[in-house]
């Protein structure tokens, strides 16, 4: 046992721990720095010049950021919802229907957006929208086109998340429901859906945050008057360091941290309740 792994020795243990700590430092240092410098009095976002809440005060009056945030939230909520619906259908298709014409092609198309550079997806949707607009005068570049771009990427991510869960399901439960006379739609709403709810929520949160954060495809697909928050931040960050960006970042990090914590507590509680219900039901049977 003493010679089991390279890392049984004392030195290796210390080295391993140091590597992990160093790695986490690398991953978290930028986020800490972002937050710290949002309270910086100096305009220079790399040097400390005393504590101040100045940038938060300015943020409250920053209509560009606030309008951008509002637009981003609207796009994120609608595109995440659409992504989860389409992604679930795609996942369901890939898991449940093993044989239909063009299945390989379909699975390729579902997975391709995960590896395709966003620059290409943005450009291709843009060129198509421009071509369509030239013919029928619709759609204007703006909310709709950005939404569509986010939906395309989100759908693939949602499909992957939901697919993983569907594959783990015990098919006997659905078969039992069908044997008891449930219609396919009833099987889905009464049996499948409750079992995959957690993965639907994770897929929604994932696609929501992807959309809220997206720069590249939004930049290609946005039009005049439709500037999402990441686009505002990106254009300011390009010009140089800007403490207002740090203030936005801190607000976002805190909001996301609270939401992720709340969501995971909620999911854990729902799981526990489900487990309790199942065991109660089993007791009743016995």
């Amino acid at each position, binding site marked *: 046992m003493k010679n089991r792994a390279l890392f049984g020795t004392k030195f290796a243990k210390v080295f391993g721990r140091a590597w992990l700590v160093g*790695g986490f430092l690398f991953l978290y240092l*930028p986020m800490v720095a972002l937050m710290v*410098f949002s309270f910086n009095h100096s305009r220079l976002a790399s040097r400390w010049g005393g504590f101040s809440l100045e940038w938060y005060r300015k943020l409250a009056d920053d209509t560009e950021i606030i309008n951008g945030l509002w637009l981003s939230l609207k796009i994120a909520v609608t595109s995440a919802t659409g992504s989860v619906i389409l992604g679930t259908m795609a996942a369901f298709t890939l898991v449940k229907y093993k044989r239909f014409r063009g299945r390989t092609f*379909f699975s390729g198309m579902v997975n391709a957006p995960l*590896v*395709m*550079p966003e620059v290409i997806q943005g450009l291709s949707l843009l060129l198509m929208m421009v071509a369509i607009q030239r013919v029928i005068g619709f759609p204007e570049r703006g909310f709709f086109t950005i939404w569509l771009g986010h939906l395309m990427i989100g*759908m693939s991510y949602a499909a992957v998340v939901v697919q993983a869960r569907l594959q783990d399901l015990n098919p006997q439960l659905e078969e039992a429901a069908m044997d008891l006379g449930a219609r396919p739609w009833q099987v889905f709403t009464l049996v499948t859906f409750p079992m995959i709810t957690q993965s639907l929520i994770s897929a929604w949160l994932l696609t929501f945050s992807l959309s809220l954060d997206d720069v590249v495809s939004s930049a290609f697909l946005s039009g005049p008057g439709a500037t999402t928050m990441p686009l505002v931040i990106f254009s300011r960050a*390009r010009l140089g360091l800007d403490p207002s960006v740090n203030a936005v970042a801190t607000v*976002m990090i805190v909001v996301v941290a609270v939401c992720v914590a709340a969501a995971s507590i909620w999911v854990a509680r729902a799981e526990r309740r489900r487990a309790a219900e199942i065991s109660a039901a089993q007791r009743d049977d016995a």
Partner: protein
Amino acid sequence: MEASDKKATWRPSWWRGRTAVIGVPYFWLLLFFLAPFLIVANYSVSEMGAIRAEDISSVSEGAIRLVMKYTNYQRLLPTQDTLYLYAYWASIKYAFVTTFFCLLIGYPFAYFMARAKQSLQPTLLMLVMLPFWTSFLLRVYAWKGLLDEGGWVASLITGTHFDKVLVLMGAIEVPGQLMHTTFSLIIGMTYTYLPFMILPLYANLSKMDLRLLEAASDLGATPWVAFWRVTVPLSKAGIVAGSMLVFIPCVGEYVTPDLLGGPSTLMIGRVIWDENFNNNDPPMAAAVAVVLVLLIVVPLAYFNKYQAEAQEARK
């Protein structure tokens, strides 16, 4: 009898439902994923200002003929303009270097994570995934502050005179000047994609059968030999998956080079953007994009083949 009646009325609705479940996402993908690609392909063989469906094919005397204008592709050749070749080369080079550093940092990280106390592992995993939930744009922007003159990391590097080493390595040009260099670009991309390397490696390494190491040790292998000849070969699938997840998006990266890179680090994503918006030349942008897709398809095909083989081997 009743049962079969029921089945007869039941089946069509089931099939209609099935068709809808398959059809809706299928149609959607054809319309908004495949069609835009075909349009890009069509643009790429079109002349500026005259883009019609006839550019790619024309019907003459009842036969469909492919008519393509390769001028956009000819312009990609280094004989006409070396910019494109340099940009493709830079994209591949930086993606490769980033993958290398991600592996260098990520492999030991994933290894120690997988060998950490069992009760600690979910927390460690959470900590790796948590940065995903905060904006990637903001995390990249943060490096601007860290690497700018007087920033935390910049002070550390100039304080330890590591910047002189970086000059020797060719990662920066002037000591003390860290931003808008190859160095800042690589550090930003490594930072962004590190979790993509760690997660598949961790998934792979945590599943490894530790008894194999005991067997190696019983057979006289030193821990170091056992690591290189047992652990590393067994984690090959994780290494390949992680490398692909880092390399492929890095080639088309746009945001990080724009924020952290400099004039010397022009990558292909930027070129596509510039052709489309600054030069107002969508056909050229489309041609650049088509070649980029072809460049990405090659490693991807290898990856798919490798995975298929690995799956076969498992059976």
